[in-house]
């Protein structure tokens, strides 16, 4: 019987070759660390385009909110569908996020307000870059915070330790540790078996460094997927993911988690949040923001339901590159702003609360007279997750240059 060492990535697959990986290998080897503690999983969701946090989590008890947003403000909660959903007497959820209210009530969803990146840029491109790299203001960073967050592996390293959903490998997850971009688990293979071993040989041996690296990751992941592909997937506990790319991404992640193949960090994104016009049209439940939040909320709720007990090991965090102007513009929309909102969801989250220090919306309280002022750095939220959930205490390396990282007590 070969020793455990022999099954380290690379050598193991050479012994077994393509298409003959034993099922027990894929499951048990990566499922747990030495000592039997089940691996924790962190899922990061990026809302691309700068979501309007002030309409996602409404400070309905602030009269100024309604002064600044006479036509696109979400009405105060009164139990009817077209009003905000009361959370704590001050903040309310956008009605399209109704599926997440039970998670808040059962204390598995925490919200952080007036949070984001301190960098003043209002360029989508730059701000996304800074948030994904975890180093606001620094263009030279080439990798992402999530890749640096991965702790040193003790034991075999799963080829799908770090997964980005979609056809592109997200910036957040790129770096020294191998990360894989996956579109769909069931299609992750060479369809024509005659080509498989030929391609594998080429990419294993090519002198083209970039293609060699990615090639190797690809083939290692293919082998792992084979064991997962054998069974079709039905979401558990009656969970229903909505149609669309985001729902599908979360479903793929849930499937990977349940397959116990050593997933540790996953990333997915959802776009369309750049609501300069028609953010809110005739009613709160119409308009671009409501449509997007519907998909967003339903997908997250389905994910939570689907995972069931496994949610104990999982934490999900959402973020967006910056928020939007406190004042509505002339087109039933908002322009680029500053501070925003983050959601943190999961088994060890101390939910049922809105964290952060609310800075107010009076003229003098607005950043540059136009945006919500920042009172919590996004790295405080991510840092606590990295240290306490993933278990990597080396935050100076994960968020270089950030001196005053402060935990906010999000995790219990």
């Amino acid at each position, binding site marked *: 019987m070969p020793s455990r060492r022999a099954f380290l990535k690379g050598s193991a697959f050479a012994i077994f070759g393509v298409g003959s990986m034993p099922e027990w290998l894929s499951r048990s080897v990566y499922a747990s660390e030495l000592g039997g503690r089940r691996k924790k999983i962190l899922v990061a969701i990026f809302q691309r385009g700068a979501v309007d946090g002030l309409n996602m989590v409404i400070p309905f008890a602030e009269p100024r909110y309604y002064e600044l947003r006479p036509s696109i403000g979400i009405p105060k909660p009164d139990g009817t569908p077209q009003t905000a959903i009361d959370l704590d007497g001050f903040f309310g959820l956008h009605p399209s996020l109704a599926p997440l209210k039970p998670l808040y009530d059962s204390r598995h969803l925490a919200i952080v307000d007036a949070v984001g990146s301190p960098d003043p840029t209002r360029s989508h491109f730059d701000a996304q870059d800074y948030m994904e790299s975890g180093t606001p203001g620094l263009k030279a960073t080439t990798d992402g915070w999530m890749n640096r967050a991965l702790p040193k592996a003790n034991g075999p390293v799963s080829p799908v330790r770090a997964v980005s959903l979609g056809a*592109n490998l997200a910036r957040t997850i790129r770096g020294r540790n191998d990360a894989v971009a996956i579109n769909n688990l069931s299609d992750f293979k060479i369809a024509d078996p005659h*080509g498989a071993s030929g391609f594998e040989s080429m990419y294993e041996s090519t002198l083209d460094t*970039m293609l060699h690296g990615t090639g190797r990751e690809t083939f290692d992941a293919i082998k792992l997927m084979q064991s997962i592909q054998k069974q079709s997937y039905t979401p558990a506990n009656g969970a229903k993911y909505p149609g669309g790319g985001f729902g599908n991404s979360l479903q793929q992640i849930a499937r990977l988690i349940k397959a116990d193949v050593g997933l540790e960090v996953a990333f997915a994104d959802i776009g369309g949040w750049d609501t300069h016009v028609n953010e809110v049209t005739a009613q709160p439940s119409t308009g671009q923001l409501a449509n997007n939040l519907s998909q967003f909320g339903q997908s997250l709720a389905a994910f939570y339901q689907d995972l069931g007990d496994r949610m104990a090991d999982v934490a999900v965090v959402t973020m967006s590159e910056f928020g939007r102007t406190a004042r509505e513009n002339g087109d039933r929309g908002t322009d680029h702003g500053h501070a925003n909102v983050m959601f943190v969801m999961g088994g060890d989250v101390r939910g049922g609360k809105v964290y952060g220090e609310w800075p107010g919306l009076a003229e003098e309280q607005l950043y540059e007279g136009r945006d919500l002022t920042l009172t919590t750095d996004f790295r405080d939220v991510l840092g606590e997750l990295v240290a306490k959930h993933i278990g990597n205490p080396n935050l100076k390396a994960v968020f270089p240059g950030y001196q005053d990282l402060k935990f906010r007590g999000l995790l219990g």
Partner: protein
Amino acid sequence: MRNRLLLGFVLSSVTLLTAAAEKSKKPSNDAALQAKLFQKKLTNDQQVLHALDRLTFGPRPGDVESVKRMGVKKWVELQLNPERIRENPDLDAKLEPLESLRMTPLEAVQHYPSPQMILAIAQGRQPMPDDPVLRASIERIMHRFKFQQKIEKKNSGSQTGGPAFDPNAELEPAKRLNEVLTPDELLIMKGGSPEQKRVLFEHMTPERMDETLIALPRPQRQQLVPIVPTAARRTIMLLNAPQQVVAFDLLDAKLLRAIESNRQLAEVMDDFWFNHFNIFYDKASDRFSIPDYERQAIRPYVLGRFRDLLEATAKSPAMLFYLDNFQSVRPDIDAHDKSRKVKRGLNENYGRELMELHTLGVNGGYTQKDVTEVARCFTGWTLFEPRRGGGFFYNDRLHDNGEKIVLGQVIPAGGGMDDGEKVLDILATHPSTAHFISKELAQRFVADNPPDSLVEKMAATFLKSDGDIRQVMETMLTSREFWSQGAYQAKVKNPFEMVVSSVRALGANVSDAFALANQVDHLGEPLYRKLEPTGYSNLNSDWVNSAALLARMNFALQLAENHMPGVKVDPSRFGDQPVAAAKTLLGRTASPQTQNGIQKALSEQKQKTPGLVAGLVIGSPDFQRR
């Protein structure tokens, strides 16, 4: 022999170093080595392949020989002057049915109604069109709308944004299927193979085809989309989802032109500039105005004057809509209007992206204040009936006529439309713009990290020639850095380049490009559908990841083995000899690793799979580079 060994060594170190530079953590040694490589000349054979790789979408069989015969210099000069090149008549024939591409936004709106448009016709605000197919589609949808309205009257209550379509409601066709088709034809429609159905449609007159498609139930019609010829597919789109016809035409044309045009550099430049001045197809009215945008605002200027290109995009309905400038008005416009609950105002989107993405670049030296001032200058640059395909017009009522200061330059009050023109003048002649554009061109055509020496030369030409793109390209294409080992095979093909170069290398015949466009999407670059104004990346690292690589390998095998709908490949053309096949497809000798990989696959074959060798070459690491 010695030279070949030396060459092989140099080549592999180039690829190693170029690729390593991406993941390198110790820049100094590699940088010095890189700089040397950008000064190191190419052999004559390498020059020929390099010219084809960079100025076209990839060599076809016979291209290497014909460029050699003409001489690289002469060939490059010709490509820089596309009007001297006679276009491929087959291409023109294939583009003919794609009529939405020739339409103005207004014509497109009239021919391909959106749900909002259908609502307008149903409510009597717009007349019913004459064209029978268009009429049938509108009537059918309207019927559903009425149907839905009946239901909604019953459940009084929540309002929705527009008519929701009940998939079960169907309008009675004028002629039933068994009145249009013969019994034999009916049998094929009911149970024939996709190929049989395709042949059936290919032999029908346009009128019969229309009647057949109208008579089919919607789901059956939809199933025919991947099977039928282009003309039939367009009719199905018209009946099922009119507003998608334009998307199909755009994709078909873009693929066909890239594959078959003789004016290859012009097509590459079209792709480059469209991406630079990106528009997202799925933003409402943009879907009607993109054909007009590409035809009028981009293509005429691809090798022309930058200032002309800039102005054409600034005044284009597509851009005015995409970046919201048509709605940007002077901030005080509604100050005294008490009846307006929602005050209109300035929209900074275009002002910002004009500087950040179109001209100066994010580090080009503008401030937030400049963004606001530029936005003020462009107030009044708007559209007639934006959601119904209206054109550009300048409305002085909406314009902020105060004084502005843009990048330190005073634009006096009362300038009217001239304010915007002045901004375009300032930006088009700014040194940051010269640098930004030159660098972008160098990243696309030379290498991800082009040498500063080259970018500076190009920027200098830009400024001296008043933004003449052809001259800037000439500077690049006569530079040592372009024809160097540092540039050779330094770029990884993006998905579009990968798909097109594969089809060209295989000498494939494309009857329609629908399936190919889907592949480009699958590889990670949905055409015309980049949401952000930044457009798609020009850099290698953004395209190389596992999902993409896997998709490329699968695509290569599917294409070469002749399983791609709408594309005919002769799989036996390249034979079973790995070395020879690879040389033909790559235009150069394949790496030993690729040759070994192919041998391995052949040795494991139980029976011959035609096209396997070609597929393995197309999916190889070698073929991913250009």
